[in-house]
């Protein structure tokens, strides 16, 4: 009975926040197989950690931590992740549906630029794109806010230069 209740709560949690897991998988894995493997691994880690979750932090913060920790420090999968750098970010079906070739090209260039970032920089970019404030970024990554601001401006500059070169 207790297990059923936990399963029910966990199912709700995943249904409401599965976008977090998908985004992390898309950002760190380049092949469908690797994405599926990472998705399963994150799900397993979430399941293991779920009974210990005490609402001390926001549920999204907790999920980002687990998803990013799994993606970043899992070196076994890292070796298999080497491959094409295209398509690591979720594709925007809306943009592709329209005949906006210029926009599509711009997006591909940006995707490539993001994929050239380090694992830590990718995590930062993802939290930025998710419109997390610096306090929450610090809660997830453990990097001081002042340092985060510096890093963020460096990343923006890096992306700008990479886009120019492409």
């Amino acid at each position, binding site marked *: 009975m207790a297990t059923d209740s936990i399963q029910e709560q*966990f199912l709700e949690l995943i249904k409401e926040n599965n976008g977090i897991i*998908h985004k992390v998988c898309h950002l760190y894995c380049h092949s469908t197989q690797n994405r599926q493997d990472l998705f399963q691994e994150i799900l397993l880690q979430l399941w293991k950690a779920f009974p210990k979750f005490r609402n001390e932090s926001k549920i999204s913060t907790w999920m980002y931590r687990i998803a990013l920790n799994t993606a970043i420090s899992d070196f076994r*999968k890292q070796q298999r992740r080497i491959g094409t750098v295209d398509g690591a*970010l*979720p594709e*925007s079906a809306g*943009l592709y549906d329209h005949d906006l070739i210029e926009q599509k090209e711009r997006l591909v260039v940006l995707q490539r630029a993001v994929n050239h970032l380090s694992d*830590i920089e990718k995590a930062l970019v993802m939290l930025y794109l998710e419109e997390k404030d610096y306090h929450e970024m610090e809660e997830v990554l453990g990097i001081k806010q002042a340092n985060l601001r510096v890093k963020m401006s460096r990343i923006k500059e890096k*992306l700008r230069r990479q886009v120019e070169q492409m």
Partner: protein
Amino acid sequence: MELEYLKEVWKEAANQKEIIVLGREEVSEIPAIRSQSLVSGMRRNLFYELVIVLSCVVAIAVFYFISFGGMLKEVSWAYILLAVAFIIYYYKKNKLLKAMGCPACMVKSNLRLQLVTLEKYVRLYLLAGTALAPVVMLFFYILFYYKHIVLFPAMHAKGGGIGFTLLYLLFTSIFTIVFYFLNRWYVNRLYGRHIQKLKSLLQEMEE
């Protein structure tokens, strides 16, 4: 600005994200998923290592108990002692692996914890692996002594037991040193790259 543009795309993509079909049945199957994480892999390998070592040790111990009319049963006891030592070694390594990583912690703390624990794990691996060489050599020395086994009769006749003991000590020292460097190379091959990766990630976070 590039990132601002990407933010719009990201938002749009989030709304059209793949929908995962996760029902009660799938959730009940999650505990059975075979983890592909580094630590889980290491724990599985460690367990297989324990099973293989214990199986071999038991077989060898039984062989020496039964064979040679029980003349070499000391060898069996030595192997049983080795098995006990290996169980302690397994326990310590498994404990370190259990402590390696905290997925719900901040990314930086988790990386630091993983690095510190992995370095402890590697030290234990290196220490135990190197210690094995002199322990085995000491065991054979004691066995030769008590069983009056003379390996080099000519040397024994000439200089007595001292010459042999000194030569044995020299050989043990060389063997231990070679074994240490072999172990170090192997441990570095196994975990060196990951330790370096963790260090560089932490350095990047602190810069």
